[in-house]
Protein backbone atom coordinates (compact mmCIF):
# COMPACT_ATOMS: atom_id res chain seq x y z
CA UNK A 1 0.00 0.00 0.00
CA UNK A 2 1.14 3.50 -0.77
CA UNK A 3 1.16 6.00 2.04
CA UNK A 4 1.59 9.75 2.00
CA UNK A 5 2.79 11.45 5.16
CA UNK A 6 2.16 15.17 5.55
CA UNK A 7 5.01 16.58 7.55
CA UNK A 8 5.85 19.98 8.96
CA UNK A 9 9.13 21.20 10.31
CA UNK A 10 8.72 22.96 13.66
CA UNK A 11 10.74 24.51 16.45
CA UNK A 12 11.97 22.06 19.05
CA UNK A 13 9.61 21.68 22.03
CA UNK A 14 12.28 23.06 24.33
CA UNK A 15 12.78 26.17 22.19
CA UNK A 16 12.56 29.51 23.92
CA UNK A 17 10.54 31.97 21.87
CA UNK A 18 11.85 35.45 21.29
CA UNK A 19 10.81 38.27 19.00
CA UNK A 20 12.91 39.95 16.36
CA UNK A 21 13.40 43.72 16.32
CA UNK A 22 10.47 44.07 13.93
CA UNK A 23 8.16 42.05 16.15
CA UNK A 24 8.16 38.66 14.43
CA UNK A 25 9.04 35.28 15.88
CA UNK A 26 12.80 34.87 15.89
CA UNK A 27 14.23 31.64 14.59
CA UNK A 28 17.80 32.52 15.55
CA UNK A 29 19.50 29.66 17.33
CA UNK A 30 16.36 27.53 17.37
CA UNK A 31 16.68 23.80 16.80
CA UNK A 32 14.32 22.58 14.06
CA UNK A 33 12.65 19.19 14.27
CA UNK A 34 9.91 17.16 12.63
CA UNK A 35 6.65 18.17 14.29
CA UNK A 36 6.46 15.46 16.99
CA UNK A 37 2.96 14.34 16.01
CA UNK A 38 4.08 14.03 12.37
CA UNK A 39 6.91 11.81 13.55
CA UNK A 40 4.28 9.39 14.90
CA UNK A 41 2.70 9.51 11.43
CA UNK A 42 6.03 8.67 9.76
CA UNK A 43 6.57 5.75 12.13
CA UNK A 44 3.08 4.39 11.54
CA UNK A 45 3.55 4.65 7.77
CA UNK A 46 6.81 2.71 8.01
CA UNK A 47 5.19 -0.01 10.10
CA UNK A 48 2.37 -0.38 7.58
CA UNK A 49 4.90 -0.48 4.75
CA UNK A 50 6.82 -3.23 6.55
CA UNK A 51 3.61 -5.21 6.78
CA UNK A 52 2.05 -4.57 3.38
CA UNK A 53 4.85 -3.27 1.16
CA UNK A 54 4.43 -0.23 -1.05
CA UNK A 55 5.89 3.22 -0.86
CA UNK A 56 5.99 5.98 1.75
CA UNK A 57 6.16 9.51 0.35
CA UNK A 58 6.69 12.48 2.65
CA UNK A 59 5.09 15.75 1.55
CA UNK A 60 5.81 19.09 3.14
CA UNK A 61 5.24 22.79 2.61
CA UNK A 62 8.07 24.95 3.85
CA UNK A 63 11.30 26.73 3.19
CA UNK A 64 14.56 25.19 1.99
CA UNK A 65 15.48 24.07 5.52
CA UNK A 66 12.38 21.83 5.61
CA UNK A 67 14.44 19.48 3.45
CA UNK A 68 16.28 18.52 6.63
CA UNK A 69 13.04 17.30 8.22
CA UNK A 70 12.13 15.38 5.06
CA UNK A 71 15.64 13.94 4.94
CA UNK A 72 15.24 12.73 8.50
CA UNK A 73 12.01 10.94 7.59
CA UNK A 74 13.85 9.40 4.65
CA UNK A 75 16.57 8.26 7.03
CA UNK A 76 13.90 6.61 9.18
CA UNK A 77 12.87 4.66 6.08
CA UNK A 78 10.50 6.72 3.93
CA UNK A 79 11.14 6.34 0.19
CA UNK A 80 11.04 9.84 -1.19
CA UNK A 81 10.02 13.37 -0.44
CA UNK A 82 8.11 16.21 -2.02
CA UNK A 83 8.71 19.76 -0.86
CA UNK A 84 6.37 22.51 -1.93
CA UNK A 85 8.44 25.62 -1.62
CA UNK A 86 7.35 29.00 -2.87
CA UNK A 87 7.89 32.47 -1.45
CA UNK A 88 4.24 33.21 -2.24
CA UNK A 89 3.22 30.76 0.50
CA UNK A 90 4.59 33.06 3.18
CA UNK A 91 1.53 34.72 4.64
CA UNK A 92 -0.76 31.97 3.34
CA UNK A 93 -3.37 30.89 5.86
CA UNK A 94 -4.24 27.28 6.64
CA UNK A 95 -6.64 27.12 3.71
CA UNK A 96 -3.82 28.12 1.35
CA UNK A 97 -1.35 25.63 2.79
CA UNK A 98 -3.98 22.89 2.67
CA UNK A 99 -4.65 23.61 -0.98
CA UNK A 100 -0.97 23.41 -1.87
CA UNK A 101 -0.59 20.14 0.07
CA UNK A 102 -3.73 18.61 -1.39
CA UNK A 103 -2.63 19.49 -4.91
CA UNK A 104 0.77 17.92 -4.35
CA UNK A 105 -0.83 14.79 -2.84
CA UNK A 106 -3.27 14.50 -5.74
CA UNK A 107 -0.33 13.92 -8.11
CA UNK A 108 0.61 10.81 -6.10
CA UNK A 109 -0.94 7.38 -5.82
CA UNK A 110 -1.99 6.67 -2.24
CA UNK A 111 -4.15 4.39 -0.14
CA UNK A 112 -3.70 6.32 3.07
CA UNK A 113 -2.61 9.77 4.21
CA UNK A 114 -1.09 10.04 7.67
CA UNK A 115 -0.15 13.19 9.54
CA UNK A 116 0.03 14.61 13.05
CA UNK A 117 -3.22 15.93 14.49
CA UNK A 118 -1.67 19.30 15.26
CA UNK A 119 1.60 21.12 14.66
CA UNK A 120 3.12 22.24 17.93
CA UNK A 121 4.13 25.62 16.55
CA UNK A 122 0.88 27.24 15.47
CA UNK A 123 -1.40 24.77 17.29
CA UNK A 124 -4.14 25.24 14.73
CA UNK A 125 -5.10 21.63 13.88
CA UNK A 126 -6.69 22.86 10.66
CA UNK A 127 -4.65 21.55 7.77
CA UNK A 128 -5.50 17.82 8.02
CA UNK A 129 -9.27 18.36 8.00
CA UNK A 130 -9.02 20.84 5.17
CA UNK A 131 -6.85 18.50 3.08
CA UNK A 132 -9.27 15.62 3.68
CA UNK A 133 -12.15 17.80 2.59
CA UNK A 134 -10.38 18.99 -0.57
CA UNK A 135 -9.50 15.40 -1.50
CA UNK A 136 -12.96 14.18 -0.44
CA UNK A 137 -11.53 11.59 1.94
CA UNK A 138 -12.93 10.29 5.21
CA UNK A 139 -10.81 11.45 8.13
CA UNK A 140 -10.15 10.08 11.57
CA UNK A 141 -8.52 12.39 14.04
CA UNK A 142 -6.35 11.63 17.09
CA UNK A 143 -5.53 8.01 16.27
CA UNK A 144 -3.81 5.96 18.96
CA UNK A 145 -4.10 2.68 17.03
CA UNK A 146 -4.45 1.93 13.32
CA UNK A 147 -5.19 -1.47 11.81
CA UNK A 148 -5.53 -1.96 8.07
CA UNK A 149 -7.43 -4.89 6.67
CA UNK A 150 -7.87 -4.92 2.90
CA UNK A 151 -9.45 -1.66 1.87
CA UNK A 152 -10.61 -0.65 5.35
CA UNK A 153 -8.90 0.80 8.38
CA UNK A 154 -9.97 0.37 11.98
CA UNK A 155 -8.83 3.28 14.08
CA UNK A 156 -8.86 3.79 17.82
CA UNK A 157 -9.40 7.46 18.31
CA UNK A 158 -8.84 9.23 21.55
CA UNK A 159 -11.78 11.34 22.58
CA UNK A 160 -12.18 13.27 25.81
CA UNK A 161 -12.60 10.60 28.44
CA UNK A 162 -13.34 7.86 25.91
CA UNK A 163 -11.75 5.82 23.17
CA UNK A 164 -13.80 5.54 20.00
CA UNK A 165 -13.27 2.69 17.60
CA UNK A 166 -14.05 3.72 14.05
CA UNK A 167 -13.91 1.97 10.74
CA UNK A 168 -13.32 3.87 7.49
CA UNK A 169 -12.85 2.83 3.89
CA UNK A 170 -9.51 3.60 2.25
CA UNK A 171 -8.22 5.90 1.01
CA UNK A 172 -8.58 7.92 4.17
CA UNK A 173 -6.72 10.58 6.10
CA UNK A 174 -5.74 9.67 9.65
CA UNK A 175 -4.10 11.99 12.15
CA UNK A 176 -1.74 10.73 14.82
CA UNK A 177 -1.96 11.34 18.56
CA UNK A 178 0.75 10.63 21.07
CA UNK A 179 0.55 6.98 22.10
CA UNK A 180 0.19 5.66 18.54
CA UNK A 181 3.75 4.32 18.53
CA UNK A 182 7.37 5.04 19.45
CA UNK A 183 9.14 6.66 16.50
CA UNK A 184 12.37 4.88 15.56
CA UNK A 185 15.75 6.55 15.41
CA UNK A 186 17.35 6.63 11.96
CA UNK A 187 20.13 4.04 11.68
CA UNK A 188 23.53 4.95 10.26
CA UNK A 189 22.64 2.90 7.20
CA UNK A 190 19.35 4.77 6.92
CA UNK A 191 21.11 8.11 7.13
CA UNK A 192 23.52 7.09 4.36
CA UNK A 193 20.69 5.81 2.16
CA UNK A 194 18.61 8.94 2.76
CA UNK A 195 21.26 11.04 1.06
CA UNK A 196 20.52 9.26 -2.20
CA UNK A 197 16.74 9.35 -1.95
CA UNK A 198 14.99 11.95 -4.09
CA UNK A 199 13.26 15.07 -2.79
CA UNK A 200 11.15 16.64 -5.48
CA UNK A 201 10.89 20.43 -5.29
CA UNK A 202 7.66 21.97 -6.46
CA UNK A 203 6.64 25.60 -6.81
CA UNK A 204 3.05 26.80 -6.88
CA UNK A 205 3.39 27.15 -10.65
CA UNK A 206 4.47 23.50 -10.89
CA UNK A 207 1.24 22.60 -9.10
CA UNK A 208 -0.85 24.81 -11.34
CA UNK A 209 -1.75 27.09 -8.42
CA UNK A 210 -1.53 30.85 -8.43
CA UNK A 211 -0.21 32.98 -5.59
CA UNK A 212 -3.47 34.94 -5.74
CA UNK A 213 -5.46 31.81 -4.98
CA UNK A 214 -3.42 30.37 -2.11
CA UNK A 215 -0.95 33.04 -0.99
CA UNK A 216 -1.28 36.01 1.35
CA UNK A 217 -3.76 37.73 -0.97
CA UNK A 218 -6.24 34.87 -0.50
CA UNK A 219 -5.76 34.53 3.25
CA UNK A 220 -8.92 35.02 5.29
CA UNK A 221 -6.95 34.83 8.52
CA UNK A 222 -4.18 37.34 9.02
CA UNK A 223 -1.88 37.83 11.97
CA UNK A 224 -1.27 41.49 12.72
CA UNK A 225 1.07 41.24 15.70
CA UNK A 226 3.09 38.89 17.85
CA UNK A 227 3.86 39.33 21.51
CA UNK A 228 5.24 37.37 24.41
CA UNK A 229 3.01 36.37 27.31
CA UNK A 230 3.35 38.45 30.46
CA UNK A 231 6.07 37.03 32.65
CA UNK A 232 4.81 35.40 35.81
CA UNK A 233 6.48 36.58 38.93
CA UNK A 234 7.53 33.82 41.27
CA UNK A 235 5.39 33.99 44.39
CA UNK A 236 5.72 33.09 47.97
CA UNK A 237 7.50 30.08 49.38
CA UNK A 238 5.73 28.82 52.47
CA UNK A 239 7.68 28.18 55.64
CA UNK A 240 7.44 25.91 58.62
CA UNK A 241 6.62 22.28 59.27
CA UNK A 242 4.71 20.37 56.56
CA UNK A 243 1.51 20.57 58.61
CA UNK A 244 1.83 24.36 58.90
CA UNK A 245 2.65 24.72 55.22
CA UNK A 246 -0.42 22.74 54.23
CA UNK A 247 -2.66 24.75 56.57
CA UNK A 248 -1.19 28.04 55.37
CA UNK A 249 -1.60 27.11 51.70
CA UNK A 250 -5.27 26.28 52.17
CA UNK A 251 -5.77 29.55 54.06
CA UNK A 252 -4.05 31.56 51.30
CA UNK A 253 -6.04 29.89 48.56
CA UNK A 254 -9.27 30.66 50.42
CA UNK A 255 -8.60 34.09 51.84
CA UNK A 256 -6.05 35.69 49.54
CA UNK A 257 -6.55 34.04 46.14
CA UNK A 258 -10.21 33.23 46.87
CA UNK A 259 -10.18 30.24 44.55
CA UNK A 260 -11.48 27.58 46.94
Amino acid at each position, binding site marked *: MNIVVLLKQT*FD*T*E*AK*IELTADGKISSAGVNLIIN*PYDEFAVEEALKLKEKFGGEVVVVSVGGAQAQDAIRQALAMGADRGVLVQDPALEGADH*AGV*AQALAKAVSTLSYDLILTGW*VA*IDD*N*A*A*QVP*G*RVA*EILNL*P*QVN*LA*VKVEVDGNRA*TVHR*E*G*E*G*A*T*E*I*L*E*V*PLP*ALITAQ*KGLNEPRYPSMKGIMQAKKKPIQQLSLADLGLSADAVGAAAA*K*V*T*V*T*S*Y*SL*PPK*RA*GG*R*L*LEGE*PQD*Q*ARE*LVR*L*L*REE*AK*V*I
Partner: protein
Amino acid sequence: MATAVLVFAEHKEGQWRKVTAELLTRGRAFADQLGGELGAVLLGQGVAGMAGSLGQYGVDKVYLADDERLANYTTDAYTSVVADLIKSLQPQLVLFGHTALAKDLAPRVAQRLGAGLVTDCTGLELAGGKVRFVRPIYAGKAITQGEVSGPPAMVTVRPNVLGVAEVGARTPEVVSQPVQLDPGSLRQLVKDIVKKATGRVELTEADIIVSGGRGMKGPENFKILEELADVLGAAVGASRAAVDAGWRDHDDQVGQTGKTVSPTLYIACGISGAIQHLAGMQSSKYIVAINKDPEAPIFQVANYGIVGDLFTIVPLLTEEFKKALQ
Protein backbone atom coordinates in the same frame (compact mmCIF):
# COMPACT_ATOMS: atom_id res chain seq x y z
CA MET B 1 -34.28 39.19 12.01
CA ALA B 2 -31.32 37.36 10.56
CA THR B 3 -29.01 35.10 12.53
CA ALA B 4 -25.86 37.13 13.10
CA VAL B 5 -24.05 34.67 15.33
CA LEU B 6 -24.38 30.90 15.31
CA VAL B 7 -22.96 28.80 18.15
CA PHE B 8 -22.32 25.08 17.93
CA ALA B 9 -23.97 23.97 21.18
CA GLU B 10 -21.85 21.02 22.23
CA HIS B 11 -23.11 18.61 24.83
CA LYS B 12 -22.00 15.40 26.41
CA GLU B 13 -24.14 12.78 28.10
CA GLY B 14 -27.12 15.06 28.33
CA GLN B 15 -25.19 18.01 29.78
CA TRP B 16 -24.00 21.17 28.06
CA ARG B 17 -20.26 21.42 27.76
CA LYS B 18 -19.09 24.28 29.93
CA VAL B 19 -17.66 26.01 26.86
CA THR B 20 -21.13 26.11 25.30
CA ALA B 21 -22.32 28.52 28.00
CA GLU B 22 -19.16 30.57 27.51
CA LEU B 23 -19.66 30.80 23.75
CA LEU B 24 -23.32 31.72 24.09
CA THR B 25 -22.62 34.44 26.64
CA ARG B 26 -20.16 36.10 24.26
CA GLY B 27 -22.30 35.22 21.24
CA ARG B 28 -25.24 37.09 22.78
CA ALA B 29 -23.15 40.25 23.12
CA PHE B 30 -21.85 39.93 19.55
CA ALA B 31 -25.34 39.35 18.15
CA ASP B 32 -26.55 42.52 19.88
CA GLN B 33 -23.54 44.40 18.57
CA LEU B 34 -24.33 43.20 15.05
CA GLY B 35 -28.05 43.83 15.41
CA GLY B 36 -29.02 40.24 14.70
CA GLU B 37 -30.13 37.07 16.38
CA LEU B 38 -28.15 34.53 18.36
CA GLY B 39 -28.70 31.04 17.00
CA ALA B 40 -27.55 27.75 18.47
CA VAL B 41 -27.13 24.55 16.51
CA LEU B 42 -28.00 21.42 18.43
CA LEU B 43 -27.19 18.00 16.96
CA GLY B 44 -27.74 14.54 18.35
CA GLN B 45 -30.33 11.90 18.99
CA GLY B 46 -33.00 12.40 21.64
CA VAL B 47 -31.72 15.89 22.40
CA ALA B 48 -34.87 17.89 21.61
CA GLY B 49 -35.59 18.19 25.33
CA MET B 50 -32.34 20.11 25.83
CA ALA B 51 -33.20 22.88 23.37
CA GLY B 52 -35.30 25.04 25.68
CA SER B 53 -32.61 25.28 28.33
CA LEU B 54 -30.42 27.25 25.91
CA GLY B 55 -32.74 30.18 26.58
CA GLN B 56 -30.91 30.80 29.85
CA TYR B 57 -27.91 31.88 27.79
CA GLY B 58 -29.90 34.33 25.68
CA VAL B 59 -30.41 32.20 22.58
CA ASP B 60 -33.09 33.42 20.16
CA LYS B 61 -33.36 30.34 17.97
CA VAL B 62 -32.24 26.76 18.37
CA TYR B 63 -31.66 24.90 15.12
CA LEU B 64 -32.31 21.32 16.10
CA ALA B 65 -31.22 18.29 14.12
CA ASP B 66 -32.38 15.25 16.07
CA ASP B 67 -31.66 12.08 14.18
CA GLU B 68 -30.38 8.58 14.84
CA ARG B 69 -27.56 9.15 12.36
CA LEU B 70 -26.33 11.95 14.61
CA ALA B 71 -26.37 9.91 17.82
CA ASN B 72 -22.59 9.50 17.76
CA TYR B 73 -20.34 12.14 16.29
CA THR B 74 -19.02 11.35 12.86
CA THR B 75 -17.15 13.86 10.72
CA ASP B 76 -19.15 13.20 7.58
CA ALA B 77 -22.65 13.50 9.04
CA TYR B 78 -21.94 16.46 11.30
CA THR B 79 -20.01 18.36 8.61
CA SER B 80 -22.86 17.96 6.21
CA VAL B 81 -25.58 19.16 8.61
CA VAL B 82 -23.58 22.06 10.05
CA ALA B 83 -22.26 23.26 6.67
CA ASP B 84 -25.75 23.18 5.15
CA LEU B 85 -27.16 25.15 8.05
CA ILE B 86 -24.45 27.82 7.84
CA LYS B 87 -25.05 28.06 4.10
CA SER B 88 -28.73 28.68 4.57
CA LEU B 89 -28.50 31.05 7.56
CA GLN B 90 -25.43 32.98 6.41
CA PRO B 91 -24.41 34.16 9.87
CA GLN B 92 -21.54 36.60 10.13
CA LEU B 93 -19.84 34.63 12.85
CA VAL B 94 -19.84 30.94 13.81
CA LEU B 95 -18.44 29.89 17.19
CA PHE B 96 -17.27 26.47 18.35
CA GLY B 97 -15.52 25.38 21.54
CA HIS B 98 -11.94 24.22 20.98
CA THR B 99 -12.87 20.66 21.94
CA ALA B 100 -11.81 17.32 20.47
CA LEU B 101 -15.08 17.21 18.53
CA ALA B 102 -14.86 20.73 17.12
CA LYS B 103 -11.18 20.36 16.23
CA ASP B 104 -12.33 17.56 13.94
CA LEU B 105 -15.45 19.30 12.67
CA ALA B 106 -14.64 22.99 12.27
CA PRO B 107 -11.76 22.75 9.74
CA ARG B 108 -13.79 20.39 7.59
CA VAL B 109 -16.84 22.68 7.64
CA ALA B 110 -14.69 25.75 6.97
CA GLN B 111 -13.08 24.12 3.96
CA ARG B 112 -16.43 23.02 2.58
CA LEU B 113 -17.72 26.60 2.85
CA GLY B 114 -14.49 28.23 1.71
CA ALA B 115 -14.55 30.07 5.03
CA GLY B 116 -11.79 31.51 7.18
CA LEU B 117 -11.29 29.73 10.47
CA VAL B 118 -9.16 30.61 13.42
CA THR B 119 -8.80 28.01 16.17
CA ASP B 120 -7.99 27.91 19.87
CA CYS B 121 -8.66 31.60 20.50
CA THR B 122 -8.29 33.01 23.99
CA GLY B 123 -9.66 36.43 23.11
CA LEU B 124 -12.27 37.60 20.65
CA GLU B 125 -13.86 40.93 19.77
CA LEU B 126 -15.74 42.64 17.00
CA ALA B 127 -14.34 45.93 15.84
CA GLY B 128 -15.14 47.87 12.70
CA GLY B 129 -16.94 44.93 11.13
CA LYS B 130 -13.92 42.69 11.66
CA VAL B 131 -13.54 39.71 13.94
CA ARG B 132 -10.35 40.19 15.90
CA PHE B 133 -8.75 37.35 17.74
CA VAL B 134 -6.03 36.64 20.26
CA ARG B 135 -4.48 33.20 20.12
CA PRO B 136 -1.44 31.64 21.73
CA ILE B 137 1.10 29.83 19.58
CA TYR B 138 3.90 27.49 20.63
CA ALA B 139 1.49 26.32 23.35
CA GLY B 140 1.51 29.73 24.96
CA LYS B 141 5.15 30.73 24.54
CA ALA B 142 3.96 33.54 22.26
CA ILE B 143 0.67 35.28 21.49
CA THR B 144 -0.70 36.42 18.15
CA GLN B 145 -3.35 38.97 17.40
CA GLY B 146 -5.09 39.12 14.08
CA GLU B 147 -8.26 39.19 12.07
CA VAL B 148 -10.45 36.66 10.38
CA SER B 149 -12.68 37.82 7.57
CA GLY B 150 -16.12 36.51 6.73
CA PRO B 151 -18.89 36.00 6.30
CA PRO B 152 -18.92 33.55 7.79
CA ALA B 153 -15.93 34.07 10.04
CA MET B 154 -15.43 30.83 11.94
CA VAL B 155 -13.74 30.56 15.30
CA THR B 156 -13.00 27.89 17.87
CA VAL B 157 -12.52 29.27 21.38
CA ARG B 158 -10.49 27.66 24.12
CA PRO B 159 -12.66 26.52 27.04
CA ASN B 160 -12.39 28.38 30.34
CA VAL B 161 -11.32 31.76 28.97
CA LEU B 162 -14.44 33.72 28.03
CA GLY B 163 -16.43 33.35 31.25
CA VAL B 164 -20.17 33.11 31.70
CA ALA B 165 -22.44 36.01 32.58
CA GLU B 166 -26.14 36.44 33.27
CA VAL B 167 -27.56 37.52 29.94
CA GLY B 168 -31.31 37.49 30.61
CA ALA B 169 -33.24 34.32 29.92
CA ARG B 170 -35.34 33.98 26.78
CA THR B 171 -37.65 31.38 25.40
CA PRO B 172 -35.92 30.29 22.23
CA GLU B 173 -37.81 29.32 19.13
CA VAL B 174 -36.90 25.74 18.24
CA VAL B 175 -36.50 25.21 14.50
CA SER B 176 -36.32 21.57 13.46
CA GLN B 177 -33.85 20.92 10.69
CA PRO B 178 -34.52 18.26 8.11
CA VAL B 179 -31.54 15.92 8.08
CA GLN B 180 -30.66 15.04 4.53
CA LEU B 181 -27.73 12.67 4.33
CA ASP B 182 -26.80 10.59 1.36
CA PRO B 183 -25.96 7.17 2.88
CA GLY B 184 -23.01 6.84 0.48
CA SER B 185 -21.50 10.01 1.92
CA LEU B 186 -21.32 8.60 5.46
CA ARG B 187 -18.03 6.78 5.50
CA GLN B 188 -17.21 6.43 9.15
CA LEU B 189 -18.64 3.57 11.11
CA VAL B 190 -18.55 3.93 14.88
CA LYS B 191 -17.96 0.39 16.11
CA ASP B 192 -17.52 1.05 19.79
CA ILE B 193 -17.04 3.78 22.35
CA VAL B 194 -15.10 2.77 25.46
CA LYS B 195 -15.60 5.28 28.24
CA LYS B 196 -13.02 5.85 30.91
CA ALA B 197 -15.04 6.01 34.07
CA THR B 198 -12.97 8.41 36.13
CA GLY B 199 -15.96 10.57 37.03
CA ARG B 200 -13.67 13.57 36.85
CA VAL B 201 -13.99 16.70 34.72
CA GLU B 202 -12.13 16.99 31.44
CA LEU B 203 -8.72 18.67 31.86
CA THR B 204 -9.33 21.51 29.42
CA GLU B 205 -12.56 22.47 31.17
CA ALA B 206 -11.47 21.95 34.76
CA ASP B 207 -11.43 24.82 37.25
CA ILE B 208 -8.83 23.05 39.32
CA ILE B 209 -6.12 20.66 38.12
CA VAL B 210 -3.88 18.54 40.32
CA SER B 211 -0.91 17.45 38.26
CA GLY B 212 1.98 15.09 38.87
CA GLY B 213 5.42 14.72 37.35
CA ARG B 214 8.57 12.69 37.62
CA GLY B 215 8.61 13.29 41.37
CA MET B 216 5.59 10.99 41.72
CA LYS B 217 8.06 8.10 41.27
CA GLY B 218 5.51 5.59 40.01
CA PRO B 219 1.97 5.13 38.72
CA GLU B 220 0.61 3.83 42.02
CA ASN B 221 1.48 7.09 43.77
CA PHE B 222 -0.96 9.09 41.67
CA LYS B 223 -3.58 7.77 44.07
CA ILE B 224 -2.71 10.55 46.51
CA LEU B 225 -3.26 13.14 43.78
CA GLU B 226 -6.58 11.55 42.89
CA GLU B 227 -7.67 11.72 46.52
CA LEU B 228 -6.80 15.42 46.59
CA ALA B 229 -8.54 15.95 43.25
CA ASP B 230 -11.69 14.25 44.51
CA VAL B 231 -11.87 16.56 47.51
CA LEU B 232 -11.49 19.59 45.22
CA GLY B 233 -13.63 18.34 42.33
CA ALA B 234 -10.49 18.68 40.22
CA ALA B 235 -9.07 16.97 37.14
CA VAL B 236 -5.79 15.06 37.32
CA GLY B 237 -3.02 15.98 34.90
CA ALA B 238 0.54 14.85 34.31
CA SER B 239 3.80 16.11 32.89
CA ARG B 240 5.46 14.61 29.84
CA ALA B 241 7.98 12.83 32.07
CA ALA B 242 5.17 11.01 33.90
CA VAL B 243 3.40 10.12 30.64
CA ASP B 244 6.58 9.02 28.87
CA ALA B 245 7.35 6.79 31.85
CA GLY B 246 4.00 5.11 31.22
CA TRP B 247 2.54 6.14 34.59
CA ARG B 248 -0.37 8.07 33.12
CA ASP B 249 -2.38 8.07 29.92
CA HIS B 250 -1.26 10.59 27.29
CA ASP B 251 -4.80 11.98 27.47
CA ASP B 252 -3.71 13.44 30.83
CA GLN B 253 -0.59 15.20 29.56
CA VAL B 254 -0.29 18.93 30.04
CA GLY B 255 2.30 20.76 27.94
CA GLN B 256 3.40 21.56 24.43
CA THR B 257 2.92 17.98 23.25
CA GLY B 258 -0.15 17.55 25.42
CA LYS B 259 -3.03 19.74 26.45
CA THR B 260 -2.93 23.45 27.04
CA VAL B 261 -4.98 24.30 30.09
CA SER B 262 -6.24 27.48 31.73
CA PRO B 263 -7.73 26.50 35.10
CA THR B 264 -8.27 28.84 38.02
CA LEU B 265 -5.91 26.75 40.12
CA TYR B 266 -3.11 24.43 39.00
CA ILE B 267 -1.39 22.36 41.67
CA ALA B 268 1.91 20.97 40.33
CA CYS B 269 3.28 18.09 42.39
CA GLY B 270 6.76 16.77 41.73
CA ILE B 271 6.95 18.71 38.46
CA SER B 272 10.23 20.51 37.86
CA GLY B 273 8.76 22.86 35.25
CA ALA B 274 10.46 22.09 31.94
CA ILE B 275 9.74 24.76 29.36
CA GLN B 276 7.45 22.47 27.41
CA HIS B 277 5.31 21.86 30.51
CA LEU B 278 5.22 25.52 31.52
CA ALA B 279 4.02 26.36 28.02
CA GLY B 280 0.90 24.29 28.57
CA MET B 281 -0.14 25.62 31.98
CA GLN B 282 1.29 29.08 32.48
CA SER B 283 -2.01 30.78 31.70
CA SER B 284 -3.50 29.21 34.86
CA LYS B 285 -4.80 31.91 37.18
CA TYR B 286 -3.07 30.55 40.27
CA ILE B 287 -0.23 28.05 40.32
CA VAL B 288 0.85 26.07 43.37
CA ALA B 289 4.09 24.09 43.23
CA ILE B 290 5.16 21.34 45.57
CA ASN B 291 8.68 20.12 44.90
CA LYS B 292 11.69 18.92 46.84
CA ASP B 293 14.12 20.93 44.75
CA PRO B 294 14.07 24.62 45.71
CA GLU B 295 15.82 25.41 42.39
CA ALA B 296 13.05 23.84 40.27
CA PRO B 297 11.92 26.31 37.55
CA ILE B 298 8.28 25.68 38.50
CA PHE B 299 8.79 27.94 41.54
CA GLN B 300 9.50 30.85 39.21
CA VAL B 301 5.94 30.75 37.90
CA ALA B 302 4.12 29.56 41.03
CA ASN B 303 2.08 31.94 43.17
CA TYR B 304 2.61 29.70 46.18
CA GLY B 305 5.39 27.20 46.59
CA ILE B 306 6.13 24.50 49.10
CA VAL B 307 9.65 23.09 49.11
CA GLY B 308 9.22 19.64 50.51
CA ASP B 309 8.32 16.01 50.09
CA LEU B 310 5.07 15.75 48.19
CA PHE B 311 4.37 12.37 49.76
CA THR B 312 4.11 14.15 53.11
CA ILE B 313 2.55 17.40 51.92
CA VAL B 314 -0.16 16.18 49.54
CA PRO B 315 -2.01 13.96 52.08
CA LEU B 316 -1.82 16.79 54.64
CA LEU B 317 -3.25 19.17 52.04
CA THR B 318 -6.06 16.76 51.29
CA GLU B 319 -6.98 16.70 55.00
CA GLU B 320 -6.77 20.50 55.28
CA PHE B 321 -8.98 21.01 52.22
CA LYS B 322 -11.45 18.47 53.58
CA LYS B 323 -11.70 20.41 56.83
CA ALA B 324 -11.90 23.75 55.06
CA LEU B 325 -14.59 22.65 52.62
CA GLN B 326 -16.83 21.00 55.20
